[in-house]
């Protein structure tokens, strides 16, 4: 998960230590959970897990933990 957390920290412009499963995507002050962040996250997840996430499913995620759950589900398909 390290590479994924580092990537998420970069997208949200926060310290890597700030990224935990509880990290709230919509509460970030420096970047919004907008289409730019979503597209960046799709690329990051593809790099880290070789899984292509659906934009709509990703947009509905509230926390980093939600994204991890989505990756786990998509990986099983």
């Amino acid at each position, binding site marked *: 998960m390290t590479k994924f957390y580092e990537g998420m920290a970069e997208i949200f412009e926060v310290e890597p230590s700030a990224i935990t499963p509880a990290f709230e995507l919509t509460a970030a002050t420096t970047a919004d959970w907008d289409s*730019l962040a979503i597209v*960046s996250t*799709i*690329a990051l997840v593809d790099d880290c897990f070789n899984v292509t996430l659906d934009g709509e499913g990703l947009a509905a995620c509230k926390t980093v933990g939600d994204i991890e759950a989505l990756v786990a589900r998509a990986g099983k398909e």
Partner: protein
Amino acid sequence: MSMPIGREVRVGGARIAGVVSCVPSRQLSNDHFSERFGADKVADVIKMIGVQTRRWADEATTTRDLCRHAGQHLLARLGWEADSVDALIFVSQTPDFRLPATACALQADLGISTNCIAFDINLGCSGYPYALWLGMTMVQTGAARRVLLAVGDTISKIVDPADRATALLFGDAGTMTAIDASHDSSAEDQAHFILGSDGRGATNLIVPQGGFRDHSLSEDPRLADKDPACLYMDGGQIFNFTLRSVPPLVERTAAFAGVAIEEHDYFLFHQANLFMLKHLAKKAKLPAEQTPFNIDRFGNTSCASIPLLMTTDVADQLTQRRCRLGLIGFGVGYSWASASLSVGPLAVAETIER
């Protein structure tokens, strides 16, 4: 061999004779957008899409005008008489009118005889390989000896100026490609195409109004605060589609043509978005010198982006020697199309301004 992902078609006996692109002289830098969106937001978007400057047509200039200028220049440089052209196909999503077809207007504009096949095709990002496939097939069957492909868009006219995701991304360009018979009948001379469609993605890149169905009346929550007369793009869904479809398309195109990926001189990708293109190139393990980008200078020019690469970044190569090109178009529809073919040395590969 990987699974087929579209119709696989071989076409022989036809070649590209020349290509000309015409871009508007009006150039817009990113500063133009800072006042509206704020310099920080503009910088965020630019970091992703990679557009530094783009060309936008003025109010009086349409795609047809850009294609007409490109066509006049192309015919002159090739030394083709206008009435030697047997067919003209206009590929665009920004025609002059809902009817009549812009191809008919261009036939008259260029002084082509009335013994001419002319019609429009409504395709965007995948349009150029589609047009090549059709034009070359028309030559192969004998339906036409010389074909002109007018491929272009002025998406700047349908972006919502308040939507930074699209307002900053798109640029305008009109191109004209000449196809004629090739007397080299070797296997190496055959063009290989893959053509596919998936209409389930229709509403992810759409102008909801202006045709004969009003999609803004649907329950689509994404359109709630959007102007239905303008282009709507769901960036996440488009990227998901691109990631799923483009890497296998590249792989399958090379396999079908029987030419290894690394034996292609260039892969010319539809210039969708720089971040996306870099990710795709990395995934397909394509080095930077094999995948030229011009989105930084012209933005996403829709169906014109592949021929515009041919008349800018690889123009010198195409006029000097024979190159093996992979052409990869993908997007609105969804629709995708690829080609692997040998091109050049071309009599003309130029970009002009209007």
